């Protein structure tokens, strides 16, 4: 054993030498063209724009096509939303931070205060801030809010039209800073539509849109900004967007939180993971949205100026999204909780973490993401319960929880990453998560037998003897880590005797929605991150929205889970206010129910290897200053611009 570790160390040294050599040449690549053109300190990246004044960020949507269409209000997704538009130029009433926030999780942006509901939640009053201006000098008022909602309500083809049409009875604008919404039915979460977590209802400039004949076809080019930046220039082929700080940035909602010192921001399409790594080593890309774990490790070893959310392993920022093995709960076999639990116990989370993220994963045994404030809201309170939690295996109580799972992952990752992996148990808990479910093939086998499944020639079959096939869909080329996790799950299942295969689908969402699948490694659970309210995703899991396989599901219940108990929890959450502390209690009930039934097997946080270069700028968010999610595509990214400072000044 010892000898084997030694040889491996030797080999790893060689590997490091090779990657260092390539890194060196990559740095030359970065310097060569630029040094030829100008001295490094005066390098221009666009006419009149110095490199050191311009924060370069990755647009994770890649190239934007069509490049010149900035209508964020149209129905249908476009990459232009995240080219800086929703981060730098648009603004909304409220923001909930996926992490701690600059000044708390909740931020009143365009609104002066949180939403004011009446007692039976049929009326929501919004008070707006004063002294906010559009980039063309027009003042922002309640007219804009009223106009935005009114136009959308009456214009099919604009996003949220159905929501507004369905829930707003009428609106009132008592003064230039107030709008009152009268709702058709009681709704304690109506403000969610106006509250940004990634994106929400952004406010239109009335003075622009009222001159437009067809607001659906309108391209809003150039965009008039309500944020701290305006569009200076962009690539007609959609590979880059250059934003310039407004002269009057102090007249935006962001100014309350600090000074905006970054003069320019450029969103670019840096190409696939490998190219992003090389670009950052050449200091040509300040904020990488995501790269492969191997790319991140390379940067950790070879790029001393690169920093991440965690100062060392696992580096990545855990997004408030929960990748999971999603079963179609209607397929024969998978309609039994014993089988879903058996498949769960047949997985080895340590191997999955290793295969997908090289161990740089933040695991979760329960059905909420272990990110943002959630470990404090849910994971820690549930720890004692999980330790005692039992399921019936072969008629006897069985404790499936393994509190040492994170420790095992750290131990497995250490040989190849050495000191980068933390040793302190508390740090491990914070970085990698707590426990997960046991890898116990005996218990899994017993559960299969409990469910009446048969084992024929080492392969599991349905109770009636017919084939039990569980092909696992994954995201394929577009999402390496998820795909790698799926490949490992397939390995694990195959070893347990499941007839399984990996089915890579670049776009698996419509297939999941239609129910024409058996199992899929993807996500259906997303949360606010900073705020404990679970209604964000639970809403559509109510049985009144349930749709059988073969038809498109509504919302995110693509596993087709139906439970009266779940309906009760959802209804109760709906009937309390957004900030009611009882929300967390109901959330804990949901977690326990989901653990019992295991409609999907939660794996880990969606770890995003957002990596930032400190050569020109500092002040990026991190676990030590978790003021927001570092990913550059969320609407919440705007908060980074009061914290990030040019190094020169």
């Amino acid at each position, binding site marked *: 054993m010892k000898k*084997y570790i030694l*040889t*491996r160390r030797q*080999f*790893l040294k*060689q*590997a*490091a030498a*090779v*990657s*260092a050599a*390539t890194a060196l040449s990559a740095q030359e690549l970065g310097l060569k063209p630029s040094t030829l053109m100008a001295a490094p300190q005066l390098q221009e990246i666009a006419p009149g724009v110095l490199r050191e004044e311009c924060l370069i960020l990755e647009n994770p949507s890649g190239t934007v096509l069509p490049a010149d269409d900035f209508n964020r209000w149209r129905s249908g997704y476009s990459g232009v939303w995240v080219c800086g538009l929703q981060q730098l130029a648009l603004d909304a009433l409220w923001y909930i931070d996926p992490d701690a926030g600059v000044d708390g999780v909740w931020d009143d942006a365009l609104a002066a205060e949180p939403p004011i509901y009446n007692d039976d939640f049929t009326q929501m009053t919004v008070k707006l801030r004063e002294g906010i201006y559009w980039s063309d000098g027009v003042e922002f008022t309640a007219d804009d809010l009223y106009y935005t909602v009114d136009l959308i309500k009456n214009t099919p083809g604009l996003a949220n039209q159905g929501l507004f049409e369905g829930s707003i009875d009428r609106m009132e604008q008592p003064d230039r800073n107030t709008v009152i919404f009268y709702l058709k039915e009681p709704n304690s979460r109506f403000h969610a539509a106006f509250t940004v977590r990634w994106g929400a209802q952004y406010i239109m400039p009335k003075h622009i849109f009222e001159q437009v004949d067809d607001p659906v076809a309108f391209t809003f080019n150039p965009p008039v900004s309500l944020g701290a930046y305006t569009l200076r220039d962009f690539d007609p082929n959609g590979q880059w967007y250059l934003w310039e700080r407004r002269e009057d940035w102090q007249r935006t909602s962001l100014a309350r939180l600090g000074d905006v010192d970054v003069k320019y921001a450029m969103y670019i399409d840096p190409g*696939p*993971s*490998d190219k992003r*790594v*090389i670009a950052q080593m050449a200091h040509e890309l300040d904020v990488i949205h995501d*790269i*492969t*774990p*191997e*790319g991140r*490790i*390379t940067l950790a070893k070879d790029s001393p100026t690169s920093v991440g959310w965690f100062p060392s392993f696992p580096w990545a920022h855990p997004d408030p999204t929960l990748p999971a093995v999603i079963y179609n709960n209607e397929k024969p076999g998978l309609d039994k909780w014993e089988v879903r639990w058996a498949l769960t116990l047949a997985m080895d989370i340590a*191997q999955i973490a*290793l*295969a997908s993220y*090289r161990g740089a994963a933040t695991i979760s045994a329960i059905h909420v993401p272990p990110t943002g404030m959630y470990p404090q809201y849910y994971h820690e309170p549930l720890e004692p319960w999980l330790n005692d939690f039992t399921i019936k295996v072969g008629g006897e109580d069985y404790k499936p929880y393994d509190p040492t799972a994170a420790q095992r992952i750290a131990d497995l990752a250490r*040989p*190849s990453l050495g000191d980068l992996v933390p040793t302190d148990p508390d740090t491990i808990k914070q970085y990698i998560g707590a426990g997960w479910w046991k890898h116990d093939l005996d218990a899994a086998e017993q559960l299969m037998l409990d469910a009446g499944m048969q084992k024929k020639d080492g392969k599991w079959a349905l109770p009636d003897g017919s084939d039990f096939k569980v*092909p696992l869909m994954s995201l*394929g*080329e*577009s999402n*390496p880590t998820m*795909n*790698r996790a799926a*490949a*490992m799950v*397939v*390995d694990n299942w*195959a*070893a347990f005797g499941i007839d399984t*295969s*990996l*089915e*890579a*689908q*670049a776009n698996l969402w419509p297939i999941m929605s239609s129910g024409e699948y058996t199992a899929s490694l993807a996500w259906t659970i997303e949360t606010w991150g900073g705020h404990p309210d679970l209604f964000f995703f639970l809403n559509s899991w109510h049985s009144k929205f349930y749709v059988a396989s073969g038809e498109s599901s509504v919302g995110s219940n693509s596993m087709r889970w139906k439970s009266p108990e779940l309906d009760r929890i959802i209804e109760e959450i709906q009937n309390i206010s957004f900030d009611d502390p009882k929300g967390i209690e109901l959330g804990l009930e949901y977690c326990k129910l989901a653990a019992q039934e295991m409609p999907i097997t939660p794996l880990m946080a969606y770890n995003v290897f957002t990596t930032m270069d400190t050569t020109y700028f500092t002040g990026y968010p991190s676990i030590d200053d978790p003021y927001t999610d570092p990913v550059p595509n969320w609407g919440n990214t705007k908060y980074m611009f009061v914290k990030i400072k040019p190094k020169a000044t």
Partner: protein
Amino acid sequence: MLKVLRDLLRYDGRFRLAIILLGGVAAMVLLSYDSPYDPGKSFVVPWDLPPSREHLFGTTSRGQDLFWWLTFAVRNSLYLGIVTAIISRVISVLVGLTAGYRGGWIDRVLMAISDTFVVLPLLPILILLSFLLRDSMNLLNLAIILGLFGWSFDARLIRSQVLSLRERSFTRTAIYSGTSGFWITINEHLPFVLPIVFATTLNNILWSIGMEVTLSVLGLSDLTTPTLGTALFWANQHGALVAGVWWWITAPAVVTAILFLGLYLLFTSINEFIDPRTRLRLIGG
């Protein structure tokens, strides 16, 4: 036959090199039947080890021995190539001979179909089909699809060969003597067409292996089956290039190049041997 082989071995440097290269590939194929590792299992060996005596091609970031994994990859890619070649050869020979011999509207219709296949942009259609077939997109089905798409050029080639043969006297004699069209085709034309069939077979094998690589790299083939394409796919998925695991990219690329070079050299050297014209030039007459 053996003598021919011996002569080729002794006097044709290209043939010798081809045999050495393909021998290496064949050895890999054979070794796959005695692999100590199951290619479907990961983390069976320490990961990211560079090539060494213990692990000839190093190990992958998925904890697999790259050499043994590639033995399966070569085997599967060759299997794909050969199945594709057989299917498309059968179609192209049938279509080419029929069109060339029968002529008239049959020829027009067959060539119109063939031209349609030439004009259809294959890659987008293959990608669409792979979406459509999803988990049924295994190696065999891919081979069948490629076979169904890969015959048109060669059918045209065979047809034109038959057209020139038709003008020769023996065909006319055969027709006057009342031999049926089918037998003329089989007895008289096939032998002349076979060198073309042989030449296009190797090209077709290379083409289909190449298409598989393209589809795999885009993540659209059966990713759990080891092939030369999926090798590159998984290497990309693990950022092998920037992670310094260069052997994961290099080894499949080199093995692919060796296989292709070997097949090409074999093709030219045998072709020259078969082709009476080149033989004549070398030997004289």
